């Protein structure tokens, strides 16, 4: 396992931990951006260049900015009045997450002898992805297009200011 993998994984996990543990919501959003960037680097290490750049473009360029705008529009950077950033049932949540990680980790380590060893790096050109998208995956592509249109219109309608006289 290369040093680069350990470094980038450490960065990603640190960003994710900061994103869920910090008190200031905007700091959480910026730490999340660091986690996204770390994940994009992991994708690049896995020779998935298109997925890595799409991750940067969509997640850092759009989702992170969306989260930050939502925090600003809902005054999320003010700490709650009756103290605490964790909910009353935080212990149960933590226990569930720990149990999930334990189970997944056990599954991975248990099946480790049967996992494939290092395989040669696949070279994927954008042309092949384009051909796949327009050939074998054209139906999911069209459905995702429909979904994105519906999400766009829905998000605008949900977040729109209601007209004053129609309450």
């Amino acid at each position, binding site marked *: 396992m290369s040093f680069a993998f350990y470094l980038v994984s450490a960065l990603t996990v640190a960003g994710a931990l900061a994103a869920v543990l910090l008190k200031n919501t905007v700091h959480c959003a910026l730490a999340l951006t660091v986690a996204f960037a770390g994940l994009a680097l992991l994708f690049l290490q896995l020779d998935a260049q298109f997925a890595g750049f799409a991750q940067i473009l969509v997640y850092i360029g759009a989702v992170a900015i969306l989260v930050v705008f939502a925090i600003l529009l809902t005054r999320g950077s003010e700490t709650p009045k009756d103290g605490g950033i964790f909910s009353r049932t935080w212990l149960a949540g933590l226990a569930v997450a720990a149990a999930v990680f334990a189970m997944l980790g056990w599954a991975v380590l248990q099946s480790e002898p049967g996992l494939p060893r290092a395989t040669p790096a*696949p070279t994927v050109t954008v042309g092949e992805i384009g051909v796949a998208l327009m050939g074998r995956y054209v139906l999911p592509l069209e459905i995702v297009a429909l979904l*994105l249109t519906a999400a766009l219109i829905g998000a605008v309608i949900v977040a729109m200011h209601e007209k004053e006289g129609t309450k």
Partner: protein
Amino acid sequence: MTPLAGYLLVAALLFAIGLAGALTRRNAILVLIGIELMLNAANLNLIAFWRYGPHPEALTGMMFAIFSIAVAAAEAAVGLGLVIAIHRHAHTTDLDQMNRMKG
């Protein structure tokens, strides 16, 4: 430890951290942040299995991950729109206070 196991463990750790965040934080937006982390962990899993799987030239894993990125972006947009609308109505995003069905 094989490279694939390494990536899967990192993905599992990210998933668990996202889940912990989604279950323990009070602010609705931080729950959404946790959900985004979980989706990203699943994407990492998909790409890792694509890379070390038997037929990477079939591009299945990468396609799945790209569609997942697109759908996650749409879901984040709608979810955050909902949080903004709820804040406008209840003047808070604190989930511990939203414990009644009555608006």
